[in-house]
């Protein structure tokens, strides 16, 4: 009897693990479809073709298409935003911090092929308030932690205190957004080499006294 129970426990554990793997697979497939054919083409039918799972199996992991996309947005919050948050709190000189902050963001977006603007287009297309809220959080967090770094540099008397924090952070936010748009409209056009460094230098020019 005991042996049967432990076996079935083991089976449940395996199931769980494969649930996580399956979920990842489904999300990846969704991103591939979006990239190749647009969000409109994401259907459970297309998905099941792409991964080789039945439509029913997909529904076991996610309730709906919206559920999948929502989960992808949460991944961006958990991966990128958490990293940026901890970076902003680290103890290093503000100029290096800006550089790392910018580069972490750019690397993430390059690795994920302009994912946020795609998610954005889904939310904006449907005017879905829950998703708009989630994207607002991602947008505002990036802006907020950027401001934290700038404030620190001003307090340490390294940078010009007459710089408008709000406007500079708006200018900063244009960098990831333009990158996203560029990655989608013109994927081959981006030259990563030294981009972070050159961009950091421009921001520092604005900040210098």
């Amino acid at each position, binding site marked *: 009897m005991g042996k049967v129970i432990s076996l079935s426990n083991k089976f449940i554990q395996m199931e769980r693990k494969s649930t996580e793997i399956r979920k990842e697979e489904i999300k990846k497939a969704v991103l591939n479809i979006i990239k*190749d*054919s*647009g*969000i*409109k*083409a994401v259907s459970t039918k297309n998905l099941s073709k792409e991964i080789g799972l039945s439509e029913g199996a997909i529904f076991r992991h996610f309730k709906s298409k919206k559920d999948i996309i929502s989960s992808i947005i949460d991944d961006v919050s958990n991966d990128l935003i958490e990293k940026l948050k901890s970076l902003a709190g680290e103890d290093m000189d503000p100029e290096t911090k800006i550089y790392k902050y910018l580069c972490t963001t750019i690397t993430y977006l390059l690795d994920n092929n302009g994912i946020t*603007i*795609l998610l*954005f*287009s*889904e939310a*904006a*297309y*449907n*005017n*879905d308030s829950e998703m*708009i809220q989630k*994207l*607002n959080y991602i*947008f505002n967090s990036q802006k907020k932690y950027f401001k934290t770094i700038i404030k620190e540099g001003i307090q340490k008397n390294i940078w010009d205190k007459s*710089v*408008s924090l*709000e*406007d*500079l952070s*708006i*200018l*900063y*936010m*244009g*960098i990831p*957004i*333009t990158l996203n*748009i560029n990655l*989608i*409209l*013109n994927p081959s056009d981006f*030259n990563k080499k030294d*981009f972070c460094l*050159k*961009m950091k*230098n*421009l921001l520092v*020019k*604005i900040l210098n006294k």
Partner: protein
Amino acid sequence: MGSIRNKRKTQIKESVLNLIFRDGIHKLSMKNLANEIGISEGTIYRYYPTKLNIIEDIINDIKTELIKKLREIADRNEPAPNKLKKYICYTIEYLHSKKGLTLVLLTEALYKNNIYLKKMLDKIYTFQKEYFINIVLDGIITGVWDDDFDLDVLAYLYMGIPATLNIETILKSESFDYKKRCDQLKKCIFKILEKK
């Protein structure tokens, strides 16, 4: 007759923007549009056979209104700093008055992976970037501005201004004073350009 026709078209395009801004592009159907304007669907079809035709016409407007004006500013025989200020402010004012229009169109293009729309939008972005670069080069050549920065990367940074503005409009952030915003952003860009 021509002007009545154009008025009708303008009315249809404006209603499309209102409808999209309020309810999202997915609500844009000929039926909803007819309701919004208070005319019959048949009347709309007389001007535009398809939804896509309306959207294409809106993109054409951006080309004739925004891009043409920006080009005209860039080509003026004026000191570069004056031109750049007008360039930034006109862009902000235009997008502000059009409620994040270009990004809405981008949304449509991405959602349906419409290659034609993507190309048109890419052109609009490219022109904006190109004229910006022309003004900055003008300032460098006439000795007003420094040249110790990467011009392509600066153009990239500049292009973020219209993009962020559009996103903010759609995310429905609080409204802002666009004159003040353009003044502040101009200051940031000028700090990069000005000689020490």
